């Protein structure tokens, strides 16, 4: 197995970074109630260089929308999504950067969100599976997974779909060998790999055909 995931090491918070500025943008924009603590966030002092211990204001740009949270610096991006924003498409399975069930796309690169701290994902574009579909129509990658029965229990599926989307963004014309290599960072226990292979190739065709939403 091979992984194409980018290692995400914690970056030092940028000096001069204004969390308050972000918070201003975020007020009133959140569609989700859980964990949005604008008042707490505004009251917290902006740390310089070192965040925490204790909760700090965090702004995450998720699927094009800024989300304001108050999180301990040790909270992973995955846990921020699942436990604080009720965005549960990304799954926690190995929680150690191995299985890919938590895959999201960060500034165009697929990452294991269990291995990225939420505070380090600030200022980046975070794409989760919740942002893929437009209205009631499935994204071509999701549709291809359905068409090819690339799912059984389905717990690995959102991670696979995001990994496939990220892979196809970078490799729009893959052959089968490239698919096997490119999706090698995701694991399935039910054994849906035959369908996944076909799905990724079908999605590549569909997306080239201009049907991409």
């Amino acid at each position, binding site marked *: 197995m091979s992984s194409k995931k980018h290692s995400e090491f914690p970056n030092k918070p940028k000096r001069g970074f204004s969390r308050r500025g972000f918070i201003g943008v975020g007020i009133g924009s959140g569609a989700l109630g859980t964990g949005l603590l604008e008042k707490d966030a505004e009251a917290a002092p902006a740390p310089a260089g070192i965040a925490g211990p204790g909760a700090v204001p965090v702004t995450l740009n998720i699927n094009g929308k800024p989300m304001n949270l108050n999180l301990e610096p040790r909270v992973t991006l995955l846990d921020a999504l699942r436990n604080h924003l009720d965005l549960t498409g990304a*799954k926690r399975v190995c929680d150690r950067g191995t299985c890919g069930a938590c895959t999201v796309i960060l500034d165009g690169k697929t990452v294991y969100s269990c291995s990225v701290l939420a505070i380090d994902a600030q200022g980046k574009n975070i794409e989760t599976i919740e942002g*893929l579909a437009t209205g009631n129509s499935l994204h071509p990658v999701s549709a291809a997974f359905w068409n090819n029965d690339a799912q059984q*229990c*389905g717990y690995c599926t959102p991670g696979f779909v995001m990994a496939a989307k990220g892979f196809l963004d970078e490799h729009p014309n893959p052959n089968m060998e490239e698919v096997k290599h490119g999706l090698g960072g995701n694991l399935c226990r039910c054994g849906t790999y035959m369908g996944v292979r076909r799905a990724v190739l079908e999605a590549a065709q569909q997306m080239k055909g201009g049907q991409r939403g």
Partner: protein
Amino acid sequence: MAKTPDYSWPPMERRKVIGQRFKRLDGPQKSSGRAKYSSDTNPKGMLFALYLTSPHAHARVTSIDTSAAEKLPGVKAVHVTAPAGTEVQWQGFEIAAVAATTEELASDAVRAIKVEYEVLPHLVREDDLAKAGSRAKAAGEKVTGDPDKIFQDAEAVSEGQYGIPVATHCCLETHGQVIQWQGDQVMAWPSTQDVTRWAPGLATNLKVPATNIKVSMDYIGGGFGSKFAPDAWGEVAARLSQKAGGAPVKLFLDRATEQLIAGNRPSAFAKIRIAGNKDGTVTGWHSESWATGGLAGGGSPPLPYVLSDIPNQRLTHTAVSVNAGPNRAWRAPNNQQAAYLTCSALDDFAAKVGMDPADVYDKNFMYAPKERVETYHYQLQKALELSDWKKLWKPRGQSAGPVKRGLGIGFSAWGGLGHQSQCRTTINPDGSVLVELGTQDLGTGTRTIITQVAAETLGLPMTAIKLAIGNNSLPPDSASGGSTTVGGVCASTRKASMNALAKLFEAVGPALMGSDPHGATRTDPAAESSFADFLEAVDGHIQVKDNPANSLTWTAACRKMGSGKISETGENNPRQPGGLIAQGAAGVQIADVSVDPETGVVRVNRYVAVQDCGMVINPRLAESQVYGAVIMGISTALFEQRVMDERTGRMLNPDMEFYKLAGIGDIGEIVVHMDIRPENDKRGVIGLGEPPAVAICAAIGNAVTNAVGVRVPNIPMTPRHVLNALAGRNA
């Protein structure tokens, strides 16, 4: 008063929905991330719970102090499960659990609990029986015929030792639930294979009436036989909820704990000798097997597998008790082990008499259960053909070139009789249809096949059926285990829908046929009138069988029932299968592998699976089941092993990095052939979850052995095991 309808399946050529390759109905939910699993449930005010578990394989808790943990901010409840004096018998044993407002605070609280242990001696490995000492217990001997004489006089005797290790289920969604206990009411969102009986399983321990425990589960992230009961964590999470004033509590095991205590497949080892004739006929069997499934030891796999009528057998079994988490059912319990041991020994016997193993298998299928013998002959020939055996197979060790190619065969058997199931089908005056069962869809396609059966029966399109499952307020179903779901739900859905349709026929009959359906054809004036004999539901119409032009649309027909609704139940009783379902599936599989004898790396080139399962409701989903079973099997054959360290008593790989699962590039090409000949179809529905999952270690082990020329006896077929075999270090 209508008489009992004829429930039998429509003949193959008349089916319009059953047998079609519909896409799974919950596919869009799953592939868009919208499917909500129990572990995705976040009710308002929910607390996060975590376990503290034992680092020791065997110890006594001498003291436990939770006072510091209780004082931490955000901690709402602490519950000790192993008070001082408790003897801990495996690593991962639950000591205490805490619930806090965030997961991070819960983890702080777990670290703040002080536990002292008196560490006791342990045994955690069973592969070398000689080292098990008093932990090994004789578990029976079975003798048939006169094995001693047969082995003395036999033309040929082969012998070998084979082993298949403990593997862990590694469900992607770990075991657990969200649960809320307020007063005498409990609401639970578990990850379970048994929605109907989860509440009764918990009620006794909580002393809450089962009827007050509401259970809901839309999706489950894998179970494979390990998720039936509420388990200790169901009760512990409920107690945490109660202690925290009735707040909902989420307690799902972390990955390490999942690997340690939430299920594993028992090991099996055996020394096997086979006696037989030079023409390949087996005449005697001698096996000394041993196994562990944890502290309780390990049961004997059913040897000799499938070929149970081999004469002159002597079998002994030894159960080894180890300090490791208890085993649980895993997709065809003990069948994979039995298939591996039997097929390996049979393959070695073929090599001993210098025959093609396919011929030896074919000759000895006569020892399989009589009613399945012909199926095995047929399936073997089909698998040989699909694997290009005649062209590709060479005698052991005669593969040319630096990388060796080999082929190997395995076979399987399973019951798969439909379980107890109840369905309710409701037809409303507006024509809408609701089908309800307290079952669950493990990802096998249960939602889809139920809907297909209802649509076929009512003559409606799939989209006209609304289905409700996954809740214990629905008509009771049974656990999804042992490949019993498809038969159970298909039969109960068929019956409920036919019963409802018969009521609809009575309501609509007079409009189509006048008051007496017998009319001029009545021969027995006393016969009860039954419109069901004369009407049928086809293509969205209710029509007269002999005169289809005389019909009403479904909607118009339903309007005839007035303001009420029709709601009928149907039941599957496995003791009275009634022709809708059957048991007894067979399968033959062939692996084609390449092995580099310098590195020991094994690659699967191609894998052929021939499988029957009676009448197939949905070939697309059936094939997915077989693909999945084969891929899981390839994973166990090549990679999976619970690695235990005897010195520390710990599992060295309780994770997903070193407990390795096959990835998308590790499985080669897989060819699935569903054996859906008419003679299989007419048997009725048979479960498919387990049968194709049985033979993979057997087929791959034999293929690797065929490639490198010496028996590689130990699963998984890792480079270490292959190179050890080539170096003669099997010990």
